[in-house]
């Protein structure tokens, strides 16, 4: 083969590799831990949060061609864990629990590192877990940390519930309405969970410091805790939002989440201030877009005639200090996945293909060395 032909073959191979043209995702180097948000699982294996309606977890690979209770879009040797923590608690508590579960998994399997995909509060817990694991092992344990729809800079819904806004009679009832009855189980603390998701310290008189601002300062994006940080952002117009997210009949689900200011200048519970227009695709029913970017902003490329893929939106830059993103990072609607907060997990309506969505994240993690 002459050098021109060789170069052409190499170029084609490179193109195939970079465009991800192959059967679903490749196997990640390290196992992938799925960290759930508020609310619990239907059973101990966590099938339903990160799964489909037939009892299949999106991290379960198929080992035979015709096996059906598995995710055919991931590699047949993929290793994954659906970690389960207390459904309603602060991320200080849940993050430590997540670190324990990951340590248990690593001890049982001999894995030396993991990747974490965290949905909603799971993405916040993951930051704490990465710090705890770093301290326990004396080295970096988490390779890639990807958050999906996580309120890194708070959620106005949490503050609305704590303030007992119109129509809310108790914090617990409001959370149960949004997330189901797991909150009534022992060990749950709905108030601690809600306080966690408000940007500022919720009360100056309770003797404790809660909220995302303090949490971010303690567990910020940090290369010694994880090698790669990225986030997927969701938002949808209210007409398509899952009715389960409607806190009130009148509709406190439509957050104004795409204006910029330093910290929470309008005291609505989330950093930024909104731009005065609620119904413009700037929230996913619970979290505004100005709260969700951590590290790289990732773009989900959904494709009906090819495998879905994830790429980095390089134009917006990297959020390394979670308490100080730029105006563009808080307000830009580019690369926002048009789904509501619950669409990206196993909650109906089921037009979203969770199996392929998470497979595309796994493939992306492979490209980042995880």
């Amino acid at each position: 083969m002459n050098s021109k032909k060789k170069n052409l073959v190499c170029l084609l191979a490179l193109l195939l590799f970079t465009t991800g043209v192959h059967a679903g995702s490749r196997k990640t180097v390290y196992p992938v831990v799925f960290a759930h948000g508020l609310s619990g699982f239907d059973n101990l294996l966590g099938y339903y949060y990160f799964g489909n309606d037939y009892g299949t977890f999106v991290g379960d690979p198929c080992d035979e061609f015709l096996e059906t209770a598995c995710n055919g879009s991931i590699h047949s040797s993929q290793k994954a864990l659906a970690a389960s923590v207390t459904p309603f608690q602060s991320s200080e508590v849940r993050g430590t629990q997540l670190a324990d579960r990951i340590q248990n998994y690593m001890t049982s399997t001999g894995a030396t590192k993991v990747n974490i995909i965290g949905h909603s509060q799971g993405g916040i817990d993951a930051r704490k877990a990465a710090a705890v694991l770093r301290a326990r092992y004396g080295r970096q344990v988490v390779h890639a940390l990807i958050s999906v729809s996580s309120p890194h800079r708070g959620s106005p819904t949490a503050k609305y519930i704590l303030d007992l806004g119109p129509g809310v009679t108790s914090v617990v009832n409001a959370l149960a309405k949004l997330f189901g009855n797991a909150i009534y189980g022992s060990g749950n603390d709905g108030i601690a969970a809600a306080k966690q998701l408000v940007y500022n310290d919720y009360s100056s008189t309770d003797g404790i410091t809660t909220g995302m601002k303090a949490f971010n300062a303690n567990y910020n994006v940090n290369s010694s805790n994880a090698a790669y940080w990225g986030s997927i952002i969701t938002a949808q117009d209210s007409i398509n939002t899952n009715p389960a997210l409607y806190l009130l009949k009148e509709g406190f689900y439509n957050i104004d989440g795409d204006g910029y200011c330093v910290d929470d200048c309008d005291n609505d519970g989330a950093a930024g201030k909104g731009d005065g227009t609620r119904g413009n695709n700037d929230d996913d029913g619970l979290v505004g877009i100005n709260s969700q970017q951590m590290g790289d902003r990732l773009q989900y490329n959904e494709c009906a005639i090819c495998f879905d893929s994830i790429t980095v939106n390089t134009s917006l830059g990297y959020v390394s200090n979670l308490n100080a993103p730029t105006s563009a990072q808080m307000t830009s609607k580019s690369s926002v996945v048009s789904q509501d907060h619950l669409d990206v997990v196993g909650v109906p309506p089921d037009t979203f293909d969770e199996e392929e969505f998470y497979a595309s994240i796994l493939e992306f993690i492979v490209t980042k060395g995880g």
Partner: protein
Amino acid sequence: MFQNKKILYSVLSALIILFVVILIIRPTKDKNQKDFESILSEGKISESKELPNLPEDYADHKLMEYSMEEIARILQEKYGKNIDNPAAQIAMIEELMKDLPKLYPNDWVKVLNQILGYAFPNKALELLRMSESLYNYNRFREANMSKVGLMSDEARREMMWKERYRLFGEKADQIWAMEKKMTVIGDSLKRIQESPAGNLDAKLSQYSQTLKEQFGKEYPRLMENKRQQLTEGFMVAVQKDLKVLSYGERKSALREIRQTMGMDQAALNRWDALEEEREKAWQNQQKYAEKRNQLSTKKGGMTAEDEKLLDAMRKQLFGEEAEIIKNEEASGYYRASDERTYGVN
């Protein structure tokens, strides 16, 4: 009299208008449901066709990259052997129903019928009926989302199974086979948890037997993928038994559980080391909590000197985790007050 008649006519007219409005706005079947119904009532399937050769590299591509005839040929290859199995049928239908509506938003049901007819002419109507059931089941789930979230586990299960049987008949058992298996395992763990302390070996044997019975030849694969989760589930269920044991007895019981769940020697050794580390960490937590309690409850509260003392103690007892524990306490979380779950934390 005339006046009364006028009122009567007005009321009747209003009622007729109301009736027409109700007829117009009442929940009706959507277009897709109507398409399903129309095709199924006609009982017509698309004419069989000679299908092209199987594309060589089809496994590396999505179905939708191909023509309808090629898709049908790929479906024959992928699902043909198991096409009588409802779980395989539903997997195939789902694969089609994921992308067809995106590509053919207005007539995807007709395209689906065409592909099924090309691929499995003798089963096309049965498969289309199942597609209709799946479509209606997804609508049912969507409509009942909020209601289901607030139900007890038992009530939710009952409601979902009732609808599954209504739509899919006995095939529902095979379609939701994995869920049924996991429910049996969950129920078995619940019974173990609720039973009195004692007979740990018998409980372990019962649990292990349940797993093998439920998964049969899939058991090794299940354990390969979920050994830790299944082991942890059992550990949580037998806390009553583990709590009454001495440290040495408990260590050996935990080892036996892990061994029975198939962990190899290397894993057992790693667990021995972690259990020792955790035992020490819990003792340190208690020691530290006592000191903190003593300092914080003394008259006048904690001084700056006391804070320094606690800082030093945290560093000495918890090493690199000391700073994290300090953060936790500032937020109101005290690890020492956590419930210890042996074998888990």
